C-alpha cells in the first residue's frame, strides 16, 4: 500500500483500527517493542509521581500549621536588589522547556539519519538537563544551609513542607540526572553509528523519557511552587 493512497484517518487507525489492533492474534501495538516498553514504564512512573503529589495534597490539606509561602521562600535577589519571587524556579522551567525543544529536534534529525545534528542536539539537551540539576543543587543548599529547612521541620510553618519538597523535587532531580546520563549514552552511540542498521527509534524512545521528565516538572511547578 502506498503512503499517499492511504488517507490520514486510516493511517491513524481510528476506532476500527483500535478494534483491529486489540483483536489481532499476534501484536497489539504497532510500534517497536522498546517504544512500547518505554511507554509502559512512563505510565507506571506517572502513578508514582501522582501518588507523591496526591500525598502532598493530603498533608497540605490536613496540617493545622500554616503552609509556608512559596513565592517568598523561593525568591532571589540579584546584586542586592529587591528579591524577585520564584525567579530561580522560573529559569529552571525555561531551561527544561528549552531542553524539550532540542530533544524534539534531535528525534526529527535522527529519523532523517543526520547523525551529526542528532548528536549535538542530544548533547545540548543533556547540557540543559545538567544545568537544571546544578540549579537544583543551588536551591537545595540555599534552603538547607541558609533557611534551615529540614525534612522534619522548618522555621516558616508546617513541617510537611520540607519533607514534601525534598521528596518530590529530589525524585524529579534523580530522573533528570538519570536522563542526562541516558541521553549522553545514546548520543555517543548515535555518533559511533551503532544505529545505522537498527534504525533511529532509540532517539525517539530516549526523547519520550526526556519529555516525560519535563512533563512532570510542569505539574510540580504548578502545584508545589505556584499554588
Amino acid at each position, binding site marked *: 500500500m502506498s503512503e499517499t493512497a492511504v488517507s490520514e484517518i486510516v493511517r491513524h487507525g481510528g476506532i476500527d483500527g483500535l478494534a483491529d489492533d486489540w483483536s489481532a492474534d499476534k501484536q497489539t501495538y504497532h510500534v517497536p517493542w522498546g517504544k512500547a516498553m518505554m511507554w509502559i514504564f512512563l505510565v507506571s512512573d506517572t502513578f508514582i509521581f501522582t501518588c507523591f503529589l496526591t500525598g502532598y495534597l*493530603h498533608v497540605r490539606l490536613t496540617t493545622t500549621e500554616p503552609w509556608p509561602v512559596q513565592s517568598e521562600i523561593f525568591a532571589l535577589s540579584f546584586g542586592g536588589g529587591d528579591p524577585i519571587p520564584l525567579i530561580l524556579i522560573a529559569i529552571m522551567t*525555561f531551561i527544561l522547556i528549552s531542553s524539550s525543544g532540542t530533544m524534539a529536534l534531535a528525534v526529527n534529525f535522527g529519523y532523517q539519519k543526520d547523525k551529526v545534528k542528532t548528536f549535538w542536539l542530544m548533547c545540548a539537551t543533556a547540557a540543559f538537563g545538567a544545568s537544571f540539576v546544578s540549579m537544583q543543587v543551588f536551591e537545595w543548599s540555599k534552603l538547607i544551609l541558609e533557611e534551615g529547612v529540614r525534612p522534619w521541620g522548618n522555621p516558616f510553618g508546617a513541617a510537611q513542607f520540607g519533607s514534601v519538597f525534598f521528596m518530590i523535587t529530589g525524585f524529579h532531580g534523580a530522573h533528570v540526572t538519570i536522563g542526562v546520563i541516558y541521553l549522553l549514552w545514546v548520543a555517543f552511540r548515535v555518533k559511533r553509528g551503532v544505529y545505522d542498521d537498527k534504525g533511529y527509534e532509540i532517539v525517539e524512545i530516549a526523547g519520550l523519557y526526556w519529555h516525560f521528565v519535563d512533563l512532570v516538572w510542569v505539574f510540580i511547578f504548578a502545584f508545589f511552587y505556584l499554588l
Partner: protein
Amino acid sequence: MSSDTGQQHPLGLYYRIWVLLFVLSACSYAVDFFNVQGGMRWFLVIMFMLLKAGFIIAIFMHVFWERLALAFTILGPPTVLLMLIVFMAVEGNYISGTRYLYMGHDPNAVALSPSDLHGAEHEEEEEEAH
C-alpha cells in the same frame, strides 16, 4: 503505518509548539509575579498547566499521531488517578475540619517568611536608633 517510517513531522510544527510552551510558561510565572490570588490564581495556573502538558504529550511525545490502541493504553490508566485525587481531597478536607474543630488550632494563622526571620533583629535595631 507509523512503525514503518517512524514519527516524522515538519520541523516548523516543533518550532511553533516550542514557542507556545515558552509563552505558556511565561504566563504561569506572570500569575505569581503579578500576585494574582484566590480562585483566579487556581483557574489560570491549572489552565496553563493543562495546556502545556497537553502540547508536550500530543506533539512532542507524538501521542496525537499514534494509533488509538497505544494512545488509550497511555491515557486510560492514569484517569483512575483522578478518582484518587478527588477522594484524598474530600478526605483531607474532612480531617482538617475535625482537627481545627477539636484541636484548637487557628485556621487563619499566617506562615512566616524569610524576611520575618532574617530581617527581624536588624529592623529592631533600626527602630531603636530612631
